[in-house]
């Protein structure tokens, strides 16, 4: 049996397992009828005959993408994410012969890149990070990361809504920036005067240990707690029951004890995590049983009910939630649930609309699949998937404000937090 035959068998096993997983587990049975059989008939021969593994995974994900759902994709050995590291020309900084690493490590140079006013823009720079030392500032425009033009990202496996395009660029930029600690990545950027610069950034070590839960990639938890006057601010980057939940609860409890007027939950750029974690955070903010919405599995539904724990007092002041296009999944469930319950005011931009419950499972051949196993609707029956959370006060960030050192969304949130009922 030659290697070609083995590769074909592995591809067949991966393809069949992924197709079956959707047929048997996807929360929406209606999607997996005759059309799903037709999808297999169309894509199976193409995928099996793919000239290389990146093409195989692209075709497989294209088939999955036809369902139009978030939280549905397959990754595996040899897919595009891995192949990129084998393409030296792709990671060569413009004007430089040096080859640098692009990988999936937990090092990062300390900046967030988002699509603001249609252009990839630095929205945040971590103080004292490699990016800060290199002179990058919020409001600067990024044109290339690791030699890759942000204007020419690989095509998506399905048609995306504009907000999804922005979400995707943010994720792709973060992925290109991250890599093994100590490795370097080039960036080409335009400063506040639109002058072009090249910088070689070092991927800084994470401030704390990375967490790997279930089959998710390693995540460096980050909880930032601060206050402006009598308003507490809690920002966190991922819904992790350990260690993030305890730190968020402790911060809320601290603001309650100190008599804070309001708490701002900054969920900008938070892509979600453990779906159930919306419950204990909401439970610290409500005084009575509150339904955040309904999770609809394939054959049954459950409500996400937040009830104050017997051993904790909830915070009773104002709650403001900040969102943007990077707020997804559990962030959207928490924001939508508290917004509809009239317990929180949402300020910022529309969220991406990727609010499905999912599991991550191993497939044959070392591949991994995320499968949406539950839909989410608010208590009023509004599906957030494909729609997103609409802020009560929509505030868009601008390059000019970022260059001027302003966080327009936080400023608007503070106005809401301090407003008398």
């Amino acid at each position: 049996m030659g290697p070609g035959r083995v590769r074909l068998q592995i591809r067949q096993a991966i393809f069949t397992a992924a197709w079956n997983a959707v047929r048997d587990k996807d929360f929406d049975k209606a999607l997996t009828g005759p059309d799903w059989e037709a999808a297999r008939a169309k894509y199976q021969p193409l995928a099996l005959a793919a000239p290389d593994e990146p093409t195989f995974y692209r075709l497989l994900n294209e088939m999955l993408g036809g369902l139009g759902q978030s939280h549905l994709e397959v990754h595996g050995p040899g897919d595009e994410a891995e192949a990129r590291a084998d393409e030296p020309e792709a990671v060569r900084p413009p004007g430089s012969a040096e080859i640098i690493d692009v990988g999936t490590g937990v090092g990062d140079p300390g900046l967030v890149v988002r699509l603001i006013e249609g252009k990839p823009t630095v929205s945040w720079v971590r103080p004292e990070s490699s990016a800060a030392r290199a002179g990058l500032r919020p409001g600067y425009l990024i044109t290339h990361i690791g030699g890759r033009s942000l204007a020419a990202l690989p095509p998506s496996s399905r048609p995306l809504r504009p907000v999804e395009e922005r979400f995707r660029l943010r994720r792709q930029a973060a992925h290109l920036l991250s890599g093994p600690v100590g490795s370097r990545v080039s960036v080409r950027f335009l400063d506040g005067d639109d002058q072009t610069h090249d910088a070689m950034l070092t991927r800084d070590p994470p401030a704390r240990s990375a967490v790997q839960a279930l089959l998710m990639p390693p995540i460096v938890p980050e909880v930032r707690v601060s206050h402006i006057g009598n308003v507490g601010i809690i920002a966190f980057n991922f819904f992790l029951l350990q260690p993030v939940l305890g730190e968020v609860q402790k911060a809320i409890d601290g603001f309650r004890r100190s008599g804070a007027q309001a708490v701002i939950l900054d969920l900008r750029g938070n892509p979600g995590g453990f779906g159930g974690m919306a419950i204990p955070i909401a439970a610290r903010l409500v005084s009575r049983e509150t339904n955040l919405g309904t999770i609809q599995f394939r054959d049954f539904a459950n409500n996400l009910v937040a009830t104050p724990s017997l051993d904790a007092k909830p915070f009773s002041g104002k709650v403001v939630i900040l969102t943007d296009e990077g707020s997804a999944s559990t962030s959207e469930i928490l924001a939508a649930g508290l917004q509809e319950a009239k317990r929180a005011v949402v300020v910022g931009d529309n969220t991406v609309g990727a609010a499905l419950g999912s599991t991550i499972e191993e497939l044959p051949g070392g591949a991994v699949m995320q499968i949406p196993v539950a839909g989410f609707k608010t208590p009023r029956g509004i599906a957030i998937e494909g729609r997103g959370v609409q802020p009560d006060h929509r505030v868009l960030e601008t390059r000019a404000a970022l260059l001027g050192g302003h966080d327009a969304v936080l400023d608007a949130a503070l106005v809401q937090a301090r407003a008398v009922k």
Partner: protein
Amino acid sequence: MIALLALVAAIDAAPAVIPVTAVAPAPLRDAKLVLADYSRAIGDQGAWKKHRSVRVKREVSVKAMHFTSYEETTIARGGRIFSTSEMPGMGRFRRGSDGRVAWSEDPIGGLRVLKGAEAEDMRIAATWNSEWRLGEVYAKVASVAPPVVVPSGESWECVELTKSQGQPSTLCFDNKTHLRVWEKGVQASQGGDVPYVTRFSDWRGVDGVKVWHQEDVTVGPVTMEGHMVEIVFDEPVPATLFALPHKEKAKRKRE
């Protein structure tokens, strides 16, 4: 369901031109007789009756998600139960009942007193010698046909068990061994009913009675495997183990 299966089998086995009479399913035996056979099959209740408590440790794994955890449950006379598990990446899940107050404490739901169908589920789980007393533990038992297609080569007798609150469950027993092989039920939760299906196997003798050592549980999209790791009788058990935790805290504060 059985009637439908019998009809299909008959059509498959005979030419279409020959009139076919559907085979009537065998009449169902009285549920109490089915449960009595189960009691005898798992052994002498007296062997179990001599004990005061039991601690059971199970390994719970979801292989497709690379997830493994351990759950320890202590059940004691007087309808007392305490169960704890440390889930990797999720935290500690505990629940219990001192025979009067049923409670749960976990990272998602916090510390809660269980009421309604949740409390009823806990009462049933906490009942000492419940395997020999299913007819008493449940409000009503009735024989039913197997609710699913019985695996080839097997024959089941099934009993629907109705709780005083919450949805009924169906327990099926192997016709030859009379051991429980399958269960379909609904676990009450804070967010509503959670349906599950469990397959029991690997029965082994423990101190004079038979205990299943493997469970394959399907809950919605997740399939879990449970393996019995340890069964220990009559360990010293502090009475506070079963009580609502905040009472302990308050007591310690007063002291």
